[in-house]
């Protein structure tokens, strides 16, 4: 990569710079040769991949026999439940639990099949929006790789046999008062589960409950402990914050309630007085991409920045540092006492959290922008220490019975604990799991777990609000819920999950229980369960004395371990939707890669897709590298969750297992990483090869100041589009409705939720890694990501792109068979059964939003794959073009309803899938012919512009320019502001 220097010169001039894939001539030429001479003799989707994608039709063929088909789900009903009208979907409130936190959702059920997840307006963590995991977890329900039997050492056993075994085990433990009994679970906030656990342990006082969450919130609690002397749950009111300093807190994508955070944050980006976001982070995140000022820093750098700011605002004693960034941030925070906010991410050490708390206390933000409550997560302190202790006990033979509820510790445990080996020392190991995974393989008993759409449960949201999770379908494989499983070790083993949950709440709901219960289940929230805010005594420990943690020596590389942005800690690895979802920043699919900064790559002489050996504390892992602009110098991000060996057909063999390097001494970051070039090459599948806008006004960004100076700043960017009357053609008669979509780039956080939602709503097939590498991903809506400015710390912008439904659509004119035509209401309609597949429309689409079925991508044979499909959307066959339809099925549903009631379609009655799930409410759909409609109001804004509108396409999808609010006191403010005006 000798051309890096030349490249940086070019990039340094703040102009847009070319794609890393084409760095300079030599790299470019190499890539070119590579592409030219690698001529794949392609047979499309190879057999193995086909199996993966087909979701194991073969397996299903046999398994349907042992699948208990619940009679309630065979239509026509013999005794029809009165609320079910065939063809009319029903929505049930429940929650998706991620990392123990509940995120309220509404699950759509068609004829008894859960098919789609929508946000729950009533739920505080959702307010109608959801995240990608909530969108995708419905697919997991129908995953044919899910464990489907209860087995003992591989032998299939009935539930009763397990109950007996459990009772026997408990009996064996009773004399020792449970001294040899250990329960190992993931993080949970379920009140019922916590109560059950308490009960079980009360009966066996010496038994222990160990909590292990690979990417858990232990640091957060520990930070509060350090700051206030008690474990507290901080949560934040981003809508009330004018100035935010994030110390690598990716609150827009991670954390307890990203959807809510995005909603609140976005609500302050649209207006004339937007908030200001400072982000210091080691690896680029979506939050960093939204920052007005972003600082790539090593972990130690982040801590010293925190100290500097703390000192500058007087939260801790010590001299204010000379760092202008810290000074400017501190000044800004001081200027906004009570409306500032400092927060640290899960990955930050307790000390940094403590510093954040200290600053917030000092500035009187506590109680205003930050709220403290008791911990939402139940159970004892988790983290590496607890797991290490368990491993120690197991190795010492102190543990005689190990009960593993959920999680996948054998895969996720820190490598240095050698957990699997320790576990084998335990005489009896029982497991409840969704999959017969790495952990199950080492357990004597494996019980198939019921999917959370199949079982009763409950969970708390970030603020403590409880949700009752209700099943929409009987367990497809007769799985058991965690409650039922745990009950087997208590006296309640005869109770059903429903009774267990209901009984727990019986005593706790006010008023008439049945009414309250019905309401709670119906609403998806249990009223009055939010935790009361606490005002902790600022009995701050003397932090100033504390030396900075793991300081890396200069030139040394630091490994960062982070949950992957699409498969999380590996729990979602078998979800094809998430595997094929482009990661928000790298745009990689189906794999993880070691993310390194351009300068690190330059030093090591490696390029994208080069295989390298990573050595850390005697552990070794071979992995491809991916050059990530904005990555902190010397930091190497290793996304977790890949390299599964027993994760299912989709997960297995994808990516590389970063847990193999992860030690208990550095769960989140560890200095002393060594990288050796192997000379090997590993192709990675990315959906975006070019990262610069080439000076085109594609994503328009204005600074708040510029917009205030000149209201027409946005419109003045780029060539003006033709006016409504600049046409030679006669106007076609206008219909009552003119559908249009508006996307607010100031609000959009690039979270991808719309992409998965669209995939679920419109039966969009998954094509697999090989097809993605050949540029054949099928997503109808994509989120483009561009970089502007310097290579080392670029400005990152996101832009969701749907079909623009151009009024003068270039694609329509060229279709020889009139398979894509315009509706009177302005929809650019794709007529699948008329399409012969010339692909001319796609060539002529300037937005390249059309997608083509080069092979038979949709899975026709697999029965199970059919269950998740939306019955209102055609499943496309081979050789047919497809694209965003503005969710025409939803438009027509609303039209039918309106016509039945003989009234016009009301504004907001039609909500497209992408709009519904958007946590930031960046997408508005409606009738632009009605000046009063929300979408008309959005389009009326002065930030409105049409993408490539100068081509005369007259797009119906329009954008609102992004707003940045840089601090003029800082250098590069103008650049960061992307101020074209």
């Amino acid at each position, binding site marked *: 990569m000798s051309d890096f220097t030349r490249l940086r010169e070019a990039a340094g001039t703040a102009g847009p710079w070319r*794609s890393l894939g084409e760095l300079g001539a030599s790299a*470019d030429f190499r*890539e*070119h040769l590579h*592409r*030219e001479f*690698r*001529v*794949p*003799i*392609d*047979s*499309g989707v190879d057999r193995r991949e086909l199996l993966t994608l087909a979701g194991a039709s073969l397996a299903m063929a046999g398994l349907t026999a042992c699948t208990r088909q619940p009679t309630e789900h065979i239509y026509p009903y013999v005794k029809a439940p009165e609320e079910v009208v065939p063809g009319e979907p029903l929505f049930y409130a429940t929650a998706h639990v991620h990392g123990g936190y509940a995120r309220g959702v509404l699950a759509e059920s068609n004829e008894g099949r859960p098919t789609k997840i929508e946000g729950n307006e009533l739920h505080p963590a959702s307010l109608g929006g959801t995240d990608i995991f909530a969108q995708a977890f419905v697919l997991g329900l129908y995953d044919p790789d899910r464990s489907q039997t209860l087995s003992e050492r591989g032998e299939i056993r009935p539930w009763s046999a397990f109950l007996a075994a459990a009772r026997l085990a408990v009996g064996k433990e009773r004399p020792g008062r449970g001294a040899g009994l250990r329960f190992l679970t993931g993080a949970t906030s379920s009140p019922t589960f916590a109560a059950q656990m308490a009960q079980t342990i009360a009966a066996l006082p010496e038994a222990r409950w160990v909590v292990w969450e690979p990417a858990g919130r232990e640091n957060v609690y520990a930070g509060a402990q350090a700051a206030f002397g008690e474990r507290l749950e901080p949560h934040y009111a981003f809508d009330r914050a004018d100035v935010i300093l994030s110390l690598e807190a990716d609150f827009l994508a991670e954390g307890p309630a990203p959807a809510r955070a995005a909603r609140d944050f976005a609500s302050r980006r649209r207006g004339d007085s937007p908030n200001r976001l400072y982000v210091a982070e080691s690896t680029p995140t979506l939050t960093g991409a939204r920052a007005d000022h972003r600082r790539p820093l090593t972990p130690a750098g982040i801590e010293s920045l925190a100290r500097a700011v703390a000192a500058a605002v007087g939260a801790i004693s010590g001299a204010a540092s000379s760092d202008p960034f810290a000074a400017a941030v501190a000044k800004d925070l001081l200027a906004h006492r009570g409306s500032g906010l400092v927060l640290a991410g899960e990955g930050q050490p307790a000390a940094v959290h403590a510093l954040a708390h200290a600053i917030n206390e000092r500035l009187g933000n506590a109680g205003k922008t930050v709220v403290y409550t008791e911990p939402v997560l139940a159970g004892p302190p988790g983290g590496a220490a607890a797991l290490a202790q368990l491993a120690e006990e197991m190795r010492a033979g102190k543990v005689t019975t190990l009960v593993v509820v959920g999680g996948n510790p054998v895969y996720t445990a820190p490598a240095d604990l050698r957990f699997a080996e320790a576990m084998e020392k335990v005489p009896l190991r029982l497991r409840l799991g969704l999959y017969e995974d790495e952990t199950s393989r080492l357990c004597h008993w494996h019980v198939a777990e019921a999917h959370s759409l199949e079982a009763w449960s409950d969970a708390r949201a970030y603020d403590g609000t409880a949700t009752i999770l209700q099943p929409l379908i009987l367990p497809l494989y007769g799985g058991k819920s965690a409650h039922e499983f745990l009950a087997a070790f208590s006296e309640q083993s005869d109770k059903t999950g429903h009774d267990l949950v209901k009984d727990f709440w019986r005593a706790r709901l006010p008023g008439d229980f049945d009414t309250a219960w019905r309401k709670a289940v119906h609403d998806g929230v249990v009223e009055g369960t939010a935790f009361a805010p606490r005002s902790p005594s600022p009995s701050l420990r003397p932090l100033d004395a504390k030396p900075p943690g793991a300081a890396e020596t200069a030139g040394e590389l630091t490994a960062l371990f982070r949950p992957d942005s699409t498969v999380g800690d590996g729990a979602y690895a078998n979800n094809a939707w998430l595997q094929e979802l482009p990661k928000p920043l790298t745009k990689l699919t189906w794999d993880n890669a070691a993310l390194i900064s351009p300068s690190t790559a330059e030093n090591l002489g490696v390029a994208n897709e080069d295989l390298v050996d990573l050595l850390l504390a005697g552990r070794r892992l071979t992995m491809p590298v991916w050059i990530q602009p904005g990555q902190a110098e010397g930091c190497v991000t290793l996304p977790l969750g890949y390299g599964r060996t027993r994760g299912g057909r989709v997960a297995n063999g994808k990516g590389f297992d970063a847990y193999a390097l992860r030690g208990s001494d550095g769960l989140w970051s560890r200095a002393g990483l060594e990288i050796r070039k192997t000379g090997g090459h590993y192709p990675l599948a990315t959906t975006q*090869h*070019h990262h*610069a*806008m*080439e*000076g*085109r006004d*594609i994503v328009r960004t204005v600074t708040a100041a510029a917009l205030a100076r000149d209201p027409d700043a946005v419109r003045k960017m780029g060539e003006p589009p033709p006016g409504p009357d600049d046409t030679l053609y006669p106007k076609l008669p206008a219909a009552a409705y003119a559908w249009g979509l508006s996307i607010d780039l100031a609000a959009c956080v690039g979270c991808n939720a719309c992409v998965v939602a669209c995939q679920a709503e419109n039966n969009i097939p998954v094509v697999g890694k090989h*097809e993605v590498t*050949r*540029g*054949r991903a099928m997503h109808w809506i*994509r989120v*483009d*990501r*561009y970089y502007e400015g310097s290579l080392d710390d670029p400005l990152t912008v996101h*832009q969701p*792109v749907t079909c623009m439904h151009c009024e003068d659509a*270039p694609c329509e*004119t*060229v*279709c*020889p*068979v*009139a398979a894509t035509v315009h509706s009177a209401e302005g929809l650019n309609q794709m007529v699948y059964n*008329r*399409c*012969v*597949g*010339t692909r*001319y429309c796609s*060539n*002529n689409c*300037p*937005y*390249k939003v059309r*997608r*083509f*079925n*080069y*092979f038979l991508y949709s899975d026709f044979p697999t029965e199970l794959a059919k269950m998740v499909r939306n019955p209102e959307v055609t499943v496309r066959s*081979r*050789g*047919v*073009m497809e694209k965003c339809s503005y969710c025409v099925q939803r438009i027509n549903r609303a039209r039918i309803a309106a016509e039945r009631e003989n009234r016009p379609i009301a504004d907001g009655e039609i909500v497209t899938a992408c709009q519904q799930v958007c946590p930031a409410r960046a997408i508005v759909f409606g009738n632009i012919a009605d000046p009063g409609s929300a979408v008309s109001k959005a389009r009326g804004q002065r930030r409105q512009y049409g993408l*490539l509108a100068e*081509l005369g396409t007259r797009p119906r999808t329009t954008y609102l320019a992004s707003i940045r609010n840089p601090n003029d006191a800082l250098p590069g403010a103008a650049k960061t502001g992307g101020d074209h005006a």
Partner: protein
Amino acid sequence: MSDALRPTGSSPTSETSSRAILAPGYSFTSVTDKIASIALSRRTPWQWFLGALTGFALTMVLLASLSYLFVKGVGIWGVNQPVGWGFAILNFVWWIGIGHAGTLISAILLLLRQPWRNSINRFAEAMTIFAVACAGIYPLIHVGRPWLAYWLIPYPNSMSVWPNFRSPLIWDVFAVSTYATVSLLFWYVGMIPDLATLRDRAKKLWAKMLYGMLAMGWRGSARHWARYEQASLLLAGLATPLVVSVHTVVSFDFAAGIVPGWHATIFPPYFVAGAIYAGFAMVLTLAIPLRKLYGLEDFITVRHLENMAKILLATGLIVGYGYLMEAFMAFYSGNVYERYAIANRMVGPYRTIYWSLIFCNIISPQILWFRKARRSVPILFVMAMIVNVGMWLERFVIVVVSLHRDFLPSSWGMYRPTAWDWSTFAGTIGLFLALMFLFIRLLPMISIFEMRQILPAAKAAEGE
């Protein structure tokens, strides 16, 4: 074999006269017998078998590729988003281009009264028809659902929908099918008198019957000849605008699109020029070996080759002008997309292809300014080959390089042909060869009666 028929006194080589379009010493008898014997004689040169075998073998490759294509889908090719069109359309345009020389020679040169055309028009027309046949395959197979390709034809159907007459692809359907039909008619009508000759000269019964039926009872009556000449002129008059229209319409496939690098008004003229360019290159490619193989140097003289070389040079310059204007207009328009598209051709990932195209089509033909080069058979053959390749590269640049980087950089991608792309391409070349070799074996590859017209004896009779 041909020497037996060469009249005594005429030198064996065509170096007789630099201006001659027919070596001296030929009579009605010798011309007739010499050309007819190629189709009628029992002895076939081994080179013919070699060529025909190659052709048929590759045709099998074509069939195999197509079968696999229909089973799996167009995904077996390198096409993707954003490059929705790859080899299929590229080769379609290439073949159609080649298919222009025949009709052009027969029609336009006939109207221009260029007698030298008489000895090359026949197999040039055949070449046209076979090239169009190869071209015609691609639009049918490149669609996602080939079994529905007939939907492009306007016919009353149960869906009561019709094609979209605004789409250039429908224009293609009309233009190409018309061109194919008219070329076929022109070719056949031109052959009727010669078929009569073969009928009368054939020894074997099956040959007599075959040629007899094809000749439709032609007897060379003066009245028939009169109408025949009328018809030929009228057909020529019709074919001339047609031949110009076909590649114009093909160019609309691109010019009517909005893709930067496609959306240019220069396209129709420079496509037509390119087509003639490619066509004559292919005529040379075929004529040079054929005249050697069948000893036709007396009929296809160096004069013919030189004339074609001149046409190559002229059309090559027009094509070069087209490239120049394309680049200039992109610059002059000030349109960022157009400018980038042209720059991307020159310095982008496909720049090697662009510059080799420039070498093949613009630089190398300049050698034809020299009379020596124009009259050197080997140089001309190499030249023709280079131009064949160059015109293929031009289409690659137009189709692929324009598409792979258009408006939104987020969608940019690369196109990589797969083995199936190549095998299909090789297959159509095979089909072309197979048809060509069948033709020269079974039909008079030089128009006999038109050769008679240029004999001195004939001129005398006309009182010239």
